[in-house]
């Protein structure tokens, strides 16, 4: 299984600012995924990050709000831009398990926007 770390683990931010979340994997992977889990809700896929190409965003998510970088096969960042209290969520990254459709998840970043 892959070991995934995220930084920061939690943060409290002021509205109008931006936060960049880092995701580091201990092995090379082609795809990485970013999810949002709003308070008391399920996980919603934000985007798929492929190394060497633009991220693919799901309906309802746009690059200007959630820019993603994928500089190499073990690392990705998600930025939450111009934050509002509605962005308060847990943000998780994940990677596919080789050969199956399951995914390994990072521990998440708990974001609170005041």
């Amino acid at each position, binding site marked *: 299984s892959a070991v995934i770390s995220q930084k920061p683990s939690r943060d409290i931010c002021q509205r109008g600012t931006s936060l960049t979340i880092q995701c580091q994997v201990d092995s090379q992977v082609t795809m990485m995924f970013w999810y949002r889990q709003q308070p008391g809700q*399920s996980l919603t896929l934000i985007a798929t990050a492929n190394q060497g190409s633009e991220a693919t965003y799901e309906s309802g998510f746009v690059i200007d709000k959630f820019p993603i970088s994928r500089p190499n096969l073990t690392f990705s960042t998600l930025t939450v831009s111009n934050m509002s209290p509605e962005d308060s969520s847990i943000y998780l990254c994940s990677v596919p398990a080789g050969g199956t459709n399951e*995914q390994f998840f990072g521990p998440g970043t708990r974001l609170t926007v005041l």
Partner: protein
Amino acid sequence: AQSVTQLDSHVSVSEGTPVLLRCNYSSSYSPSLFWYVQHPNKGLQLLLKYTSAATLVKGINGFEAEFKKSETSFHLTKPSAHMSDAAEYFCVVSAGGGKLIFGQGTELSVKP
């Protein structure tokens, strides 16, 4: 399009009694299905997965699930609940391109 529906938002059982968490799925092809568990303030952990092999799938911590194509169901069961089973459980379906679609979650409470 693929989707999952978890039929109960909250289930409460007594310790030592059986657990049943219900999940129905919709898929235009033979799906991969998963159950993940999320304990409070902890990450997501895979409980078990169905990938078109045996229809009865055994997972960790005594959980199992049965894939029933005729009923489009993938219910999660455990014969005897333990206090440590209290958590949020997500039924998940593969959506192609490596993507996963999560159900709304079922919160399991276990009473002593």
